[in-house]
């Protein structure tokens, strides 16, 4: 069974400071890893994904994530946070298999960026 853990319910950071939102995963075989962002009363917006290749993945809005196989982690980062980054962030994983398969989401981390 695949699972995702987001250990922090909320992350608070001042605008201009770097941010990290943590994610660890468990899956059989090679993982596909995703980050999504959800603004209030909105759907899930794709930020970035890791399939294979370079461990540092760059995505939308200046976000990036680092895949660490030995630590089974895929932490989301941004060098300089903006107030507009305040939202709910979900990490998701699926196993690398040949059939259509589900994404398993973490419980979400609320990012609060303040002036």
């Amino acid at each position, binding site marked *: 069974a695949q699972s995702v853990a987001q250990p922090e319910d909320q992350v608070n950071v001042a605008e201009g400071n770097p941010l990290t939102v943590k994610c660890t995963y468990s899956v059989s075989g090679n993982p*596909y890893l*995703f980050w*999504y962002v959800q603004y209030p009363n*909105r*759907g*899930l*917006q*794709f930020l970035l*994904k890791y*399939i294979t290749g370079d461990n540092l993945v760059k995505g939308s809005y200046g976000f990036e994530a680092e895949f660490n196989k030995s630590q089974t982690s895929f932490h989301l980062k941004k060098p300089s946070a903006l107030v507009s980054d305040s939202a709910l962030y*979900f990490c*998701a994983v*699926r196993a*690398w*298999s*040949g*059939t*259509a*398969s*589900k*994404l*398993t*989401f*973490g*419980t*979400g981390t609320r990012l609060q960026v303040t002036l």
Partner: protein
Amino acid sequence: EPEVTQTPSHQVTQMGQEVILRCVPISNHLYFYWYRQILGQKVEFLVSFYNNEISEKSEIFDDQFSVERPDGSNFTLKIRSTKLEDSAMYFCASSLASGWGYTFGSGTRLTVV
């Protein structure tokens, strides 16, 4: 940029009534999914659909639920007899290939009263 479109954005229904949630996936995508998010909780997988049949479903997706792709463009989720606990945001998603580039719709908020 192509989008997954969901209608309606919000639906209120009485307990025991049938509801159909509609989705128009991205036109060249082959894999289709429904997820739900109960208020304040995590996003949960319901079902995946490929080649006109269900390829995987969760334990949530019981006999009260069904999916259909009635024509070449729509993908629907039917809840036969709604319960209060079905109140949630329902997200449709599609992907071109398995595990590759899921795109989610903006969701339908279902409220069962």
